[in-house]
């Protein structure tokens, strides 16, 4: 009998139900569409908009997730080709090009295109864009007006600078702005759907969302252990359940609790995600969804990916129990997510409090030997800060980075063989800087 080869990455069992929860959202949206119930296409909006929609019984799907799904299933190239043929510049976001192409085809056929992954995204009743981080995430939905007559609401999000955040009264203005925006969105929905918001249900969902994020945060705290019990691949499979609010947050929180128990047991037994953890790395930003097996080759070399971008992680816990208004509560959670690293950034005079600074905090706390930078050739947002991360991590912490270019959707922009060659030589660099850190009194 042939010997069964051990997998290079020990995958968490509790990850699979979380992934299934996200996959299930396509079926739920298709069912809602068939039954004439409202369906929203949403950008990730860091919970506020999701909770409003869920309280109004709107089925949500997320074209950003669908971009990753289409990339993984090999369906994205055809969609992107259609988008390019329709005159959209090719340097635009891969997720956007996938959706624009998909929607163009759907609008021509008058129905979901055949043979698309997960049964496809049904025609939306409305679109929820987000002004968070990235111009694309509302311009893309505005461009869908070419193919869809669904109304669009763009949810505002403040982006304070680290210094401006210290201005007396500034955070409170930002929170009030978030609250006004969420209430505006709720009013927009009430008018569109001709029904009243269930504010009691909303309040319950808000509390469940806070709890879901708290548990998920605790899971990731466990990854500071050496060896790290949970690889980035499990993180990426599990994060959509939180980011995309794929299901009732109470149910998601329950599954994250199961994951906590599994990871905790691994920590107690000193079991790592890779057989022999030689190098601990942070991954920036999004992975090549079409080539995830690439990480197996790195795992075989003892590379363990122990932390990822702050952008996809839950906020640092915050006590919101004294806040009575549930809209304000969820607004404060979102704001906490954005500004959670600002205090440390300000103290260390590092002026990019999100995206860049969290890597420095993570590199220290998760004892990283290196940072794997994956500039996405079609994504400004996930790439803007990477050179600064590389420079500052080296200057401040003597943590080196490796740069491997690629794309989240476009397979042709990633060369795994070349990446592996670079990785091999990077090991010497990590070894060298480990010694340097020790000489400089850094404790990892």
């Amino acid at each position, binding site marked *: 009998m042939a010997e069964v080869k051990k997998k290079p990455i020990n995958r968490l069992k509790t990850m699979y139900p979380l992934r299934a929860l996200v996959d299930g959202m396509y079926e739920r949206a298709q069912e809602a569409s068939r039954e004439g119930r409202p369906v929203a296409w949403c950008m990730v909006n860091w919970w506020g908009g999701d909770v409003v929609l869920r309280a109004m019984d709107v089925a949500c799907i997320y074209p950003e997730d669908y971009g990753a799904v289409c990339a993984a299933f090999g369906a994205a190239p055809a969609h992107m080709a259609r988008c390019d043929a329709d005159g959209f510049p090719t340097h635009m976001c891969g997720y956007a090009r996938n959706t624009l192409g998909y929607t163009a085809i759907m609008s021509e056929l008058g129905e979901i295109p055949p043979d698309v992954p997960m049964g496809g995204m049904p025609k939306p009743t409305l679109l929820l864009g987000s002004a968070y981080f990235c111009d694309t995430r509302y311009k893309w939905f505005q461009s869908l007006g070419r193919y869809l007559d669904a109304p669009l609401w763009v949810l505002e999000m403040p982006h304070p600078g680290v210094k401006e955040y210290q201005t007396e009264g500034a955070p409170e203005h930002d929170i009030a702005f978030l609250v006004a*925006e969420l209430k505006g969105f709720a009013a927009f929905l009430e008018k569109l759907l001709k029904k009243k918001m269930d504010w009691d249900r909303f309040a319950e969902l808000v509390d469940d969302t806070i709890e879901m994020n708290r548990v998920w945060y605790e899971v990731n705290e466990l990854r500071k252990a050496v060896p790290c019990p949970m690889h980035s691949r499990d993180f990426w499979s599990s994060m959509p359940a939180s980011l995309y609010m794929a299901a009732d947050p109470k149910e998601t929180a329950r599954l994250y609790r199961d994951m906590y128990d599994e990871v905790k047991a691994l920590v107690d037994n000193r079991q790592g995600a890779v057989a022999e953890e030689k190098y601990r790395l942070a991954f920036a930003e999004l992975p090549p969804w079409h080539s995830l097996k690439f990480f197996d080759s790195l795992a075989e070399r003892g590379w363990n990916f122990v932390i990822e971008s702050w952008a996809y992680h839950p906020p640092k816990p915050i006590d919101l129990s004294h806040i009575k208004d549930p809209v304000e509560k969820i607004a404060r959670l979102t704001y906490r997510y954005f500004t959670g690293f600002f205090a440390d950034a300000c103290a260390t005079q590092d002026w990019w409090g999100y995206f860049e600074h969290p890597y420095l905090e993570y590199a220290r706390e998760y004892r990283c030997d290196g940072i794997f930078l994956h500039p996405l050739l079609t994504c400004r947002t996930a*790439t803007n800060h990477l050179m*600064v991360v590389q420079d500052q991590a080296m200057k401040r912490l003597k943590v080196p980075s490796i740069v491997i270019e690629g794309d989240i959707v476009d397979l042709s922009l990633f060369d795994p063989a070349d990446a592996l060659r670079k990785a091999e030589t990077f090991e010497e660099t990590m070894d060298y800087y480990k010694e340097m850190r020790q000489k400089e009194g850094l404790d990892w």
Partner: protein
Amino acid sequence: MAQLQTKGLGRAREIYRDRARRARELKKEGRKIFGYLDINPPVEILTAAGIVPFHLLGDMSEPITKADVCLPTVVCPFLRSVMDQGLKGKYDFLDGALFSHTCEVAEKMSHIWRIYLGDSEVYYIDTPHTTHDAAVKQHKYLLEDFIKALAESTGAEITPERLREAVALHNEQRALVRELYDLKKPDPPLISGRETIQVIVALTVLPVTEGNELLREVISEVKQRPEKPPQQPARLLVWGSIMDNTALVEMIESIGANVVMDDNALGSRAYFEDVEASDDPLDGLAYHYLVSIRNPRTFRETVLDKEGRKDYMTDLEARFGHLRDYAREWHANGVILQALRYCDSHAYEVPGIGDYLDHVGLPHIYLELDYNQSALAQLRTRIQAFLELLD
């Protein structure tokens, strides 16, 4: 260093060729100078504080050699060039800098600027993204915070009265620029596209009163001079990303077209709407810089048709109808859509504008630019073919 002596178009041309020289002269005269980026920072506040606003621009003819350390190659090449200039010390005369959330890369550049060029006197205004009432209110708060921080740090007294005076001066400049653009309506135009860019770029370094004086000189000179730009078979409107260099327009004007109108952040977009007078001048400024300016980075609510339904062409009419109006008033018979590579807020507009221009019967061509003078040569043939189409 000899002071600039020329007047009118000659003076504009000299300043255009070496903006830093005039900035250094002003500095020598004891003026404070703040760099600012793009169209959303309210320059009236700097003027009210006695500070000269200096628009940060790149240099298309200079290779980027320093900015790679902090900005990757897949972001806006114009912003990379601006950062490169900063890192090379070409903006060493600045006393401070003002950034806004004019696009996501510009927002992030404010943090990068602080990390690599120092955080002293660097300000950032987080411009909201929609025209919702709450967004306008938030924008006003952010302007108030900026004024407080600036006053505290520089000791400037930025009173409502001074703000009103600054608004009046900048509105005067807007009216003068519109008058300048009126000179492009005749056939042939009285002023070329190249000369217009030179004047507009010169304004970006001058204190507003000096800029207004320059505009008056230019307008008077252009009206009186006997020579005019040659009459060309095509009259073009150029839409898109920032154009701080004459290279593209010079090339277009050398192959059979007059560039008679534009819609970009340095050109008409910055000058064609006045800041409205308001009891509290910050109300007018907050509204103007968020709502009135037609920057594609700001999302405007979808305009519905007469039956209250979403209709693509009705929405396009609301977003791009001004281009049809410009074409009519300036007698343009073709439109060049140009966007810098990786400029997302313009890139997403391209198919929609194309649909709209098809609808109103205006021929158009889309060009993607690298903010690199040598890369323009390969566009020549495409533009020539487009011009032949217009014949």
